[in-house]
């Protein structure tokens, strides 16, 4: 592993204000964050606080109204995006959905196909390669969405409450799955979530945002040893951090 200290992307005094006919809506206020290579960062905060806005900004879908997004080498980052809904294209099979990003970039078919097969194996969907997305369960569809996000080997994997629409059991399984994938591919991950325990089980670092306009309330490194199994939940350290985060959110 290369221990680079430069950040993948650095948010400096980020400000976001939306204007519409009803006036202004300040969503983000003076956000200051460094996202480091290969770290798993979870963003927590009350609903509607602007977590998704932050993610959309990182994805390049939205330009901040103030402040700067500094990227390593000043290059445009490639991002892999996963939403709460899998957002697969129903007219493409599982394989073709995963191939989409490479197709858009004109990658030769043979190379693309090899990568797709590898990813399908990684997310364990070999038997569903040529199936229409409609017949997949929620968890499986999300795996396809993750594979699609990973296939272009993105600098940044952005997850917007990726397991939010799954039931509790599937959700836990998918969390473990995501960790396995992350460890296999060593991507820089930013994930928005509602769940404190999910954040603590997955993240290297947890960012807690305030009510709108969102500021960073807490930037908490999570130094629990990995792998974090079920037992990790009951450790004193885990409990203390959960309490600290809850306290910060409810201020």
């Amino acid at each position, binding site marked *: 592993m290369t221990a680079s200290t430069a950040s993948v992307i650095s948010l400096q005094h980020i400000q976001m204000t939306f204007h519409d006919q009803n006036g202004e809506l300040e969503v983000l206020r003076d956000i200051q964050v460094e996202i480091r290579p290969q770290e798993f960062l979870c963003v927590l905060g009350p609903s509607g606080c602007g977590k998704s806005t932050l993610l*959309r900004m990182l*994805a*390049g*879908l939205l330009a901040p109204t103030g402040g700067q997004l500094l990227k390593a080498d000043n290059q445009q980052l490639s*991002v892999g*995006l996963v*939403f709460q*809904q899998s*957002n697969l*294209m*129903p*007219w*493409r099979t599982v394989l073709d959905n995963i191939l*989409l*990003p490479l*197709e*858009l*970039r004109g990658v030769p078919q043979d190379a693309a196909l090899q990568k797709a097969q590898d990813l399908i194996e990684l997310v364990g969907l070999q038997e569903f390669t040529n199936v*229409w997305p*409609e017949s997949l369960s929620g968890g499986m569809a999300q795996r396809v969405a993750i594979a699609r996000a990973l296939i*272009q080997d993105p600098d940044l994997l952005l997850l917007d409450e990726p397991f939010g629409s799954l039931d509790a059991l599937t959700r836990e399984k998918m969390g473990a799955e995501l960790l396995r994938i992350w460890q296999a591919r060593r991507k820089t991950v930013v994930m928005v979530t509602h769940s404190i325990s999910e954040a603590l089980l997955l993240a290297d670092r947890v960012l807690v945002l305030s009510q709108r306009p969102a500021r960073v309330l807490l930037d908490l490194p999570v130094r629990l040893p990995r792998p974090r199994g079920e037992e990790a939940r009951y450790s004193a350290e885990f409990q203390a951090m959960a309490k600290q985060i809850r306290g910060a959110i409810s201020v």
Partner: protein
Amino acid sequence: MVITIALFLLLWELLVLLLQLPAFILPAPIQVAERFVRALSDGSLLEHGAATLLEVVSGLSCGVLFASLLGYLLAKSRFLENVLQPFLVASQAVPTIAIAPLLVIWFGSGIFSKVLICALTVFFPVLVNTVVGLRAVPENLRDLMRSMRATPWQTFSQLELPAALPILLGGLRIGATLSVIGAVVGELVGSDRGLGFLINVGRGQYDTALVFVGVLTLVCLAVLLYSLVVWLEKRLLRWKLD
């Protein structure tokens, strides 16, 4: 289905026999069949059928082409939609049948006026469906395409077109049958060929069997076009059917 048709023909034959109807009021099915064979063998049915088919196909293609182009622009621009909406609704409120005589006066009794009537008939349903179809493209998928830096063409061909296709083909299905009506209306108003013309000739000569032949051929034509669109839907929307 075969039994239903056979029963229907039998009933028809009986009706003519029992009521002693003259052939110019209601010809027996057998007379219609004979007239059909005659029209087929002297080439008139093929000639006029082909003329109508040409009008329908050209009108349908033009109508669909312009309607989907304008629909795409409307779906993209609320401004354009607001400006054009009243005109479009007004134009739809005018029945094509009512302005068909005008179009024939302006553009002559040749093929062009019929193609125009056809195109106008299919224009609105295809336009509306294009707008609805494109508006139905999920915003998240647009975001996804943008995050992968898709070009406008890629967004169109890989997202908008396939996403809107089911609704678009629904519009085409309505348009296909409507365009046959449009062409015949044009021909009835004024023309020198086509199935509508053939029907007019039959009427003028009290050759009612010929009128029946014309009508039945029109029905076949409409069914054929409709089936063609259904076949297209089956081919293109496999993901919906499986």
